[in-house]
């Protein structure tokens, strides 16, 4: 919970990780390239005083995670969104057993989402059923640019993905977090294209699709499909740290998202440990869209409360303390975004 100027905010960090990017876990050069890329993201967008040293960044463990999120970071609940990356790391990048143990040891604080890869075919589908039971899965994280042998990506519209998503519907895994990456087969296509999200969102109305880093680097394409599909949501990972380095750009991103997607379908996340939640929460609560940007409506306190936690709490059925709910309706509404209305009318 974060409190400022008499307002209290329930905070859900909807995208966190417990990774191991150490040299001892790297399978090849790509394991090093991947964690180095993350570290550059971290260094580039974090305020100087919260930049970690490289070794701590490659592996930080559960104790530090608990402190950064729940002691220092105002987080009430956090959701693991693990990336597998089995072609880069011996024991995978996201540490399943460690994260699951931490989740069990801290009841009510953590949700463990797992991942699947449709290229694993029937065996992977059977595994998904076992994972759903073991972890009580409510959500999965899909990284479409995952390398696997000769293949460097898949689409949500691939036939096997459909079978996995059908299983998700059946198993109550309702929250599908999509992370687009730089590779896809064939390479003729734009790997970041979110058109396949549009297709599956239409075909799986019972599932929520949370597009991580709000479609960046294809913000515009994401905004458009989100107006067309009521079950498409925006995750703020990667976008929100711009609040420090490029606040005007962040104002534009959040302004666009509020216009096209709406305040009920945007979720806060630090993408821990890419960034840490403390400074992001503080700056977001203080943030306002500059008055000179008359094309955007102001970012209201109600919108901030929804984005920082209430939206994700609703999606994951979290028990928000009475005093932290919205005073007017007691729950998140379903206001249709201005841009979505306009796109339907035209």
């Amino acid at each position: 919970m974060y409190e400022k100027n008499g307002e209290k905010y329930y905070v859900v960090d909807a995208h966190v990780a417990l990774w191991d990017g150490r040299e001892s876990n790297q399978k090849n050069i790509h394991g090093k390239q991947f964690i180095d890329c993350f570290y550059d993201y971290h260094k580039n967008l974090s305020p100087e005083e919260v930049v970690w040293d490289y070794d701590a960044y490659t592996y930080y463990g559960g104790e530090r995670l608990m402190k950064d999120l729940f002691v220092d970071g105002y987080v009430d609940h956090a959701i693991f969104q693990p990336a597998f990356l089995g072609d880069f790391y011996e024991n995978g990048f996201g540490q399943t057993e460690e994260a699951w143990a931490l989740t069990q040891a801290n009841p009510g604080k953590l949700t463990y989402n797992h991942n699947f890869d449709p290229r694993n075919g029937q065996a992977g589908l059977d595994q998904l059923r076992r994972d759903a039971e073991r972890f009580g899965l409510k959500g999965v994280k899909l990284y479409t640019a995952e390398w696997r042998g000769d293949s460097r990506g898949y689409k949500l519209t691939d036939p096997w993905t459909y079978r996995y998503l059908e299983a998700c519907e059946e198993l109550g895994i309702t929250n599908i977090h999509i992370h687009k990456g730089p590779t896809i087969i064939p390479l003729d296509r734009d790997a970041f294209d979110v058109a396949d999200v549009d297709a599956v969102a239409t075909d799986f109305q019972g599932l929520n699709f949370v597009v991580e880093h709000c479609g960046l680097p294809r913000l515009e394409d994401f905004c458009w499909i989100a107006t067309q599909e009521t079950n498409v949501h925006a995750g703020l990972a990667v976008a929100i740290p711009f609040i420090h380095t490029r606040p005007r750009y962040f104002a534009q991103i959040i302004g666009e998202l509020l216009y096209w997607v709406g305040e009920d379908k945007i979720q806060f996340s630090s993408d821990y440990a890419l960034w840490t939640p403390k400074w992001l929460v503080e700056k977001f609560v203080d943030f306002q869209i500059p008055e000179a940007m008359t094309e955007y409506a102001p970012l209201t306190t109600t919108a901030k409360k929804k984005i920082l936690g209430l939206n994700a709490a609703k999606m994951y059925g979290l028990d928000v303390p009475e005093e932290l709910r919205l005073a007017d309706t007691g729950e998140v509404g379903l206001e249709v975004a201005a841009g979505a209305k306009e796109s339907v009318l035209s």
Partner: protein
Amino acid sequence: MSAVATPVVSPAPRDRASARRGASLANDVIEALTTVKDPELDEPITELGFVRSVALHPSGVTVHLRLPTSFCAPNFAYLMVSDAQDALRRVPGAARVTVLLDDHHDSDKINAGIAADAGYLGTFGAEAAESLDALRLTFQRKAHTAAMERCVMAALTSGAARLEDLGSLTLGDLAGGPTKEALLRRRADIGLGLAPGDLVVVDEHGDAVPDEELPLRLRLATSVRISIEGNAHFCRGLLATRYANGDSDAITTDITDTRSTS
């Protein structure tokens, strides 16, 4: 951020005539690289700091390119390397042209493919289906949309156009200057007309947008512009973090000339 502007040729050749030739070739090489754009960001690779070094040597020209991360999309990376090679081969006196991509997850594959003139299909093998033409066109269209939006917003801000008249705004109505020139270049890229009477607000095929759709189209065009500009901010920042400890002023191109001048 400041990238390469003025090539500095070193070491100094022995006589003035060859000094001029050296500087001139270096200038021509940089000029050629300036025509190569990052297709996603719609900016020259020279402005973005992607040209790490240019070496003029006895057997030709070697250029090293670099990108903001090891995991920049390989298809776009390939396009920039391939475009750079094509541009440099058109430079008179460049002799043998070698373009190398540094520090990328597909550096070996792309560099081998480019060196062998293997083309896109030959470079990526089973991962490539037909060509990157459609990918390039998609981003040329986005670049056009963003350039169109800048012109329209400038016209509205200056009072040269009113919102209700945008449907009939023509190229001839736009004030001259870099914003208009940028639009004309991007129209040419995707085969749209350049006549003063041609409409400004058009779809990707050059067709007029119905009045009732104008506000939505422009709103979407704004999103496209913001997206491209934002990505460029991010890429510049990451490149500076990766190669200059965050100091974007220190992102420069290293230019050397080791050709014999005697």
